[in-house]
């Protein structure tokens, strides 16, 4: 049988196994031999071996087999692995990766080297003199695989239904519709096998358009149909009774090629990727960028037609625009979706990198990554690589203390680093926290006074933001440049990279207990939703993701005085500022924009200030381009765009405006 056509699938499957294997190994090392992880490691090696042997890659098969035998001894004896064995397994893993590259590039496979094989052999001999010689297949392994065909026994009277529904992505709030549907359905039964998975749906993460789930309930088919009838927002749905013994989710059954034993059935991510793999074509990233640019131009053109059509008032033209709009929107959604990749592409290497760095420093560190399934624009994941590694190196190098020091201060000798990614509306918040010694403000000031101009320092003290100084160019907290961090590139590089991505970074610290770096990023760079506002003679764009509410309150909801102004939104009073004065850095003067519309802006749903912004003349999706240093000098602008009618517009950097508000508020309160 010609296996070459399965090569692509083999490569992607094996890569995935290796990635998970690496994570498992690092986790296993820091968790002192959790048995289920040993099983996992064994299972992945077994799968890799099986796939390699079906494809005829005997060198790869041999190595995987040896490694599998080694772990098998621990699996059967339920004993933890020693340090030397971890090194062996990780070295073996690196060799397997090399071999995979050889396969991809049609080269002869790298020889693992007699040395490595011998080391494995010796380790095994050391463990057990009576271990079977390597090279003999064992069948006993297949029991571990326990395919996902385990029939689900339902108690008498319980039925299982398969439900599929369409929730159009352009409906009001697809994620909420999905959430409500799941809630209402779980009132009458138990939900399983949901796609997207249940946790995502219940966390309000869903962008449309298909939803599928199994429902186990005692209700009749008609009763389930009636329930579905009461759910608003489901465009169309189907429901049918299924026999759980014969049915499989399409995601699992689509890996039709039996190259090897079924991969981990419990891993939804694995199953999903495989489903996508069966029909994928690789395209160059330039082509993808071209698509995005073209969609951007289409959006601009659409706005142009919309503007032109208004005075004409032609039903035929309006209908045409309406359809154009639909097509553009669908295209835009799909193209954006293609650009989105899970952040795990970046984070999956982290535990390994940290382990190696920590080892060099003689430190013990456990790394935990949460929210790796959050999706982000592909370009941004790539650009984040360097800053994230930089922050991690800093944490390991400067933050986490040596085991002895930690013990002296009553901490667990093993340090912890936690990476957490969350999506908050249009933004991604990534926090990188360590439980090290934290950052000492006095120390920061001492170093800053040596290296930075005084007025910068004074400004930060005034803003109560001394820690922010570590992001200034020329700042360094360590006189001795260590082997792994420092080297002349400081945290200012991190801040700059983040800025080019329309994001920002800040740091918090609890001396003695650790520090947190918080990275705040937009989901995507390419297309931004903005409010267009006209204030005096200026036309400006405000990123809609920062605008929480818009209102034109009457005077009863405003408190104006000569030095401070307040406005009421939904029962709460917020300081009221004038956008233009803030942008021009004019000091507060009497509030004159009584007929202005007012927007409430904030970070991550937390209101910070109300801004008088003149008159809102519409909202648009714009293709944002970066602005150069000259424009940045004029005022707080983060980007520019061309509107459909050809007018240029500058996008206000609301982060900077918010910062100015905070400074002004501080003055007002003290």
């Amino acid at each position, binding site marked *: 049988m010609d296996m070459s056509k399965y090569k692509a699938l083999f490569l992607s499957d094996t890569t995935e196994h290796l990635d998970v294997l690496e994570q498992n190994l690092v986790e296993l090392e820091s968790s002192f031999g959790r048995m289920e992880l040993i099983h996992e490691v064994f299972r992945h090696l077994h799968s890799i071996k099986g796939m390699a042997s079906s494809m005829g890659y005997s060198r790869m098969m041999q190595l995987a087999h040896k490694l599998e035998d080694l772990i098998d001894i621990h699996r059967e004896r339920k004993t933890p692995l020693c340090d030397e064995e971890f090194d062996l397994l990780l070295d073996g893993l690196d060799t397997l990766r090399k071999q995979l590259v050889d396969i991809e590039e049609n080269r002869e496979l790298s020889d693992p080297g007699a040395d490595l094989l011998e080391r494995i052999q010796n380790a095994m001999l050391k463990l057990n003199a009576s271990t079977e010689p390597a090279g003999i297949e064992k069948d006993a392994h297949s029991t571990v695989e326990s395919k996902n065909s385990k029939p689900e026994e339902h108690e008498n009277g319980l039925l299982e239904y398969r439900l599929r529904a369409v929730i159009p992505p352009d409906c009001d*709030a697809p994620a909420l519709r999905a959430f409500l549907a799941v809630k209402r359905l779980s009132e009458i039964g138990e939900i399983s096998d949901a796609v997207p998975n249940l946790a995502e749906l219940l966390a309000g993460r869903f962008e449309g358009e298909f939803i599928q789930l199994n429902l186990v309930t005692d209700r009749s088919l008609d009763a389930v149909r009636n329930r579905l009838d*009461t759910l*608003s927002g489901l465009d169309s749905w189907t429901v049918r009774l299924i026999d759980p013994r014969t049915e499989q989710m399409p995601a699992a059954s689509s890996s039709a090629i039996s190259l090897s034993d079924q991969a981990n059935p419990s891993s939804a991510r694995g199953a999903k990727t495989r489903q996508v793999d069966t029909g994928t074509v690789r395209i160059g990233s330039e082509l993808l960028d071209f698509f995005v640019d073209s969609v951007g131009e289409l959006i601009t053109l659409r706005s142009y037609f919309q503007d032109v059509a208004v005075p004409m008032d032609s039903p035929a033209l309006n209908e045409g625009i309406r359809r154009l709009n639909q097509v553009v929107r669908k295209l835009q959604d799909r193209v954006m979706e293609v650009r989105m990749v899970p952040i795990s592409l970046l984070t999956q290497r982290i535990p390994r990198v940290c382990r190696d760095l920590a080892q060099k420093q003689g430190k013990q560190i456990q790394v935990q990554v949460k929210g790796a399934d959050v999706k982000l624009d592909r370009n941004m994941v790539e650009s984040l690589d360097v800053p994230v590694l930089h922050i991690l190196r800093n944490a390991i190098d400067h933050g986490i203390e040596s085991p002895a020091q930690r013990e002296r201060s009553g901490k667990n000798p093993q340090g912890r680093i936690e990476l957490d990614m969350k999506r908050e509306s249009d933004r991604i918040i990534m926090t990188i926290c360590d439980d090290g010694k934290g950052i000492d403000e006095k120390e920061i000031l001492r170093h800053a006074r040596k290296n930075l101009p005084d007025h910068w320092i004074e400004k930060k003290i005034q803003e109560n933001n001394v820690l922010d100084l570590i992001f200034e160019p020329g700042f360094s907290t360590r006189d001795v440049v260590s082997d792994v961090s420092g080297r002349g590139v400081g945290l200012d590089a991190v801040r700059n990279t983040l800025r080019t991505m329309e994001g920002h970074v800040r740091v918090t610290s609890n001396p003695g207990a650790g520090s947190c770096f918080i990275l705040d990023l937009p989901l995507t760079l390419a297309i931004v939703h903005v409010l267009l506002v006209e204030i005096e003679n200026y036309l400006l764009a405000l990123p809609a993701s920062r605008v929480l509410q818009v209102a034109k309150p009457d005077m009863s909801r405003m408190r104006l005085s000569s030095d401070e102004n307040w406005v009421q939104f939904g*029962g709460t009073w917020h300081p009221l500022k004038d956008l233009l004065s803030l942008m021009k850095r004019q000091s507060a003067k009497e509030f004159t924009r009584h007929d202005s519309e007012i927007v409430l802006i904030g970070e991550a749903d937390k209101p910070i200030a109300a801004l008088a912004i003149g008159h809102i003349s519409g909202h648009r999706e714009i293709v944002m381009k970066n602005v150069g240093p000259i424009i940045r000098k004029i005022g707080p602008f983060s980007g520019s765009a061309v509107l459909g009618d050809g007018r240029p517009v500058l996008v206000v950097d609301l982060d900077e405006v918010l910062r100015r508000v905070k400074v002004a508020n501080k003055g007002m309160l003290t």
Partner: protein
Amino acid sequence: MATRVLIVDDAVFMRNTLKEIFVSNGFEVVAEAANGQEAVEKYIEVKPEVTTMDIVMPFKNGIDATREIIKIDADATVIICSALGQESMVMEAIEAGATDFIIKPFKPQNVLQVVRKALVARN
């Protein structure tokens, strides 16, 4: 008999918009409330078949008001009215017992569809 509706919103404009939609489609708006506290009182007083509930309001927000109404009447039909960007609050309100939700700015056909489906569920 016309379906009896209670409208809760702190903005007169919003109340009027909803009222217009309901009245021109054969519903009867039996009461209005401008905050969560008032909403609970009016609910007890008029026992409406449908209540539309704004979330962000002074004195008592829509989520707490919904929770209290459901405590008083487990079968109450409460429709949350929310702006885009308040997803987490809507989820909280659904957990508190709200039947469904509509998103501002209101489109009459959406409002009517949601309310009618909620009434089907109620019967």
